């Protein structure tokens, strides 16, 4: 990275040591890399957990290779932490923090985040939270085992859970993670609002930036009640208060409201960045303008606001007043309108395009195709009458994996393969990228389609051994479970191809030029990788929207944002 030594008048560089360059860096690109690799590391742990408990489900009571026997509390701790890690330590850091950090300054044409030191602090708190979470798995009594939703009284009182220290550390880790993302979110929003390149107006901002910013706003506006709830839960655990103890005037249902008031917007917090990444990739590789940019943007605003009004559909049968269910059924089904509209916009964007099926494009298209399945199965759960039956079955589980997997895994791979040349200045192997793509997407469907089916016939969640339920341990059901487990192992093994491809390409891949995909947005106008300060020759100015592909009357089929007309 010799380019980092190019200095401008405004920047004087002293020799960067390993520590100041890679560990205590305030450069947004380095912080993005820190978030990304920490997220990948946590994904490996979460994936390993999935392997262990899927093995237990497929072969109950068997000693799982690399782990050993899975006891009931181990099982509960594994599923709890799998969920927590995959959402809070994989989807959030990679989709929002890593891509947000990397893309926001580059795509809006400025040299860094507005508060580089707060940015660094955000990562450090995040790292601390990850360490605390990992420690919580190893403390006496075992890790927290009350499901990622942490419903009290199970989560609040050690006499019921038996994991006194594990529960508290888990809660502290989650709370710290929220603090990290609040700091990061304020940085993202402020940067995108204030530091745009001259000439970049509201409708000139690339979709992915809008989405990350809206996601950050949603996060900031929804997480507060849960932070308050976490303080109360912490007090219940540690001090012995009775906020959630009905015998002492508390109410366990309060936590459910506090949790899901955050929990549902949180779905959109991770969904939106993935949608944004996909939109940008589809436009580049279809050589098309995003269909109805303004409509799409306002649809996303609408989704964001609506997402605050639907949370209690997670609680239909959880003891809320049955009359409230009607309101939340209506709002939940209403939110299908903007999401359907976005989906139509994505499909319409392909119309009349010139589509190249490169690796990033494959991931982006797979995101849309798979997320559709996750989206429509949500309707069953949002409709109160049908949810009576489906609640807490594997149908729910398969549904949200069909949303979260496309978001957190497919969306992430789309983003990484798209911006890898910008991040490291080299290409990844297309061939191995495609092998990895098919090796991930096909097994993914083989894992979860059987689980949809098992859920539909009444298999309930978070059970470590179905042999206790004669109706659920028929031989053919066990076969389906084994099928899902085998597919999972295949999928996990294929991830090694990605890791090898990524690390090999990072050092040995073919050198990439500034703009390998012939894209319009600003990040492609600087070096690959961009030096410290991003544009050594001066920051760019913006003259048009981000999606001017195949504009009539031009020879080239793209028209970068920074080229004067």
């Amino acid at each position, binding site marked *: 990275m010799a380019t980092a030594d190019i200095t401008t008048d*405004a*920047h*004087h560089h002293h020799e960067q040591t390993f520590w100041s360059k890679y560990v205590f860096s305030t450069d947004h690109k380095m912080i993005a890399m820190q978030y990304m690799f920490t997220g990948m590391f946590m994904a490996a742990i979460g994936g390993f957990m999935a392997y262990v408990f899927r093995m237990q489900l497929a072969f109950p009571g068997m000693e799982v290779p690399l782990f050993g026997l899975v006891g009931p509390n181990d099982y509960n701790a594994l599923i709890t932490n799998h969920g927590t890690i995959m959402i809070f330590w994989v989807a959030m850091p990679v989709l929002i923090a890593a891509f947000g950090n990397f893309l926001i*300054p580059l795509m809006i044409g*400025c*040299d*860094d*985040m*507005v*508060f*580089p030191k707060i940015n660094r602090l955000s990562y450090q708190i995040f790292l601390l939270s990850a360490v605390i979470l990992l420690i919580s798995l190893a403390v006496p009594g075992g890790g927290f085992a009350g499901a990622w939703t942490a419903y009290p009284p199970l989560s609040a009182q050690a006499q019921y859970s038996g994991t006194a220290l594990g529960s508290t550390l888990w809660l502290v880790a989650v709370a710290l993670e929220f603090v990290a993302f*609040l700091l990061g*979110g*304020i*940085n993202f*929003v*402020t*940067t995108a*609002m*204030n*530091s*745009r390149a001259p000439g*970049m107006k509201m409708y000139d901002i690339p979709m992915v930036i809008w989405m990350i910013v809206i996601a950050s706003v949603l996060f*900031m*506006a*929804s*997480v*507060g*009640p*849960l*932070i*308050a*709830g976490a*303080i*109360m839960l912490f*007090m219940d655990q540690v*001090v*012995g*208060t*009775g*906020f959630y103890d009905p015998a*002492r*005037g*508390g*109410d366990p249902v*309060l936590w459910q409201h*506090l949790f899901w*008031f955050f929990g549902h917007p949180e779905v959109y917090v991770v969904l939106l960045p993935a949608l944004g990444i996909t939109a940008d990739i589809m436009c580049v590789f279809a050589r098309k303008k995003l269909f109805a940019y303004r409509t799409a943007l306002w649809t996303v605003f609408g989704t964001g606001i609506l997402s605050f009004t639907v949370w209690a559909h997670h609680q239909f049968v959880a003891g809320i007043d049955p009359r409230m269910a009607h309101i939340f059924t209506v709002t939940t089904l209403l939110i299908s309108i903007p999401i359907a509209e976005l989906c139509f916009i994505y499909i319409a964007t392909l119309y009349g395009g010139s589509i190249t099926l490169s690796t990033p494009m494959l991931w982006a298209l797979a995101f849309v195709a798979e997320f559709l399945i996750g989206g429509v199965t949500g309707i069953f759960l949002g409709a109160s009458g049908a949810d009576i039956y489906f609640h807490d079955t594997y149908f729910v589980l398969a549904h949200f994996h069909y949303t979260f997997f496309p978001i957190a895994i497919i969306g992430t791979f789309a983003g990484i393969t798209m911006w890898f040349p910008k991040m490291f200045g080299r290409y990844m192997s297309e061939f191995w990228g495609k092998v990895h793509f098919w090796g991930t997407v096909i097994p993914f469907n083989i894992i979860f389609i059987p689980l949809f089916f098992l859920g539909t016939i009444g298999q309930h969640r978070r059970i470590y051994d179905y042999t206790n339920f004669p109706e659920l341990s028929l031989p053919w059901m066990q076969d389906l479970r084994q099928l899902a487990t085998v597919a999972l192992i295949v999928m996990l093994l294929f991830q090694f191809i990605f890791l090898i491809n990524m690390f090999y390409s990072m050092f040995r891949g073919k050198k990439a030029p500034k703009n390998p995909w012939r894209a319009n947005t600003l990040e492609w106008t600087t070096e690959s990788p961009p030096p410290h*300060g991003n544009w050594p020759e001066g*920051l760019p100015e913006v003259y048009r929207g981000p999606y001017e592909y195949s504009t009539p009357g031009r020879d080239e089929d793209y028209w970068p944002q920074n080229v004067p007309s």
Partner: protein
Amino acid sequence: MRPIANTRSAAGIPTGRLAVWWVVASEIVIFGGLLASYVMHRLAHPAWAEQAMHTNVWAGGFNTLVLLTSSLSAVLAHKAAEEGDGPKAARLLGYTMLGGAMFVVVKAFEWTAEIQAGYTITSSTFWSFYYSAAGLHGLHVIGGVVIMGFVAAAARRNEELHRVELIGIYWHFVDIVWIFLFPLLYIAK
């Protein structure tokens, strides 16, 4: 070294102030969630009125006065900073910090008396809310005083004067939270 990004202002509000507004917005939902939970429980338990009798209205009222006054000196510091008078701003911020410290000291005496009278955080859920909500607010006061110390030290040297306003906005927000906590915890009986 501040990035160029920090000096841009496409939204029409200086970056620092914009960020503080976002901090305030996210704090609103934190305290909002806590207070909404408290109000629900309070309305559900009329019997808590009896517990609330044992809070010290005069201590709470005095603390309200202290915070209102400290807000006054904070806003006067902002005015001084805008006029470019760093040392005066620093002195006024000093009064605000003094107010914050006094608030915490009064709180300490008040809590000591209550705990000695047997009203601890686990006595009942009313007291749990009382200590948790006031405690969270108290942490914000302490945090504000600490940050204000740094801002005042810089302002004394006529540096970073815009930060006087930023810490002031935060401080007024903490004040407003107390304006609601005071009737909720002390007066409603």
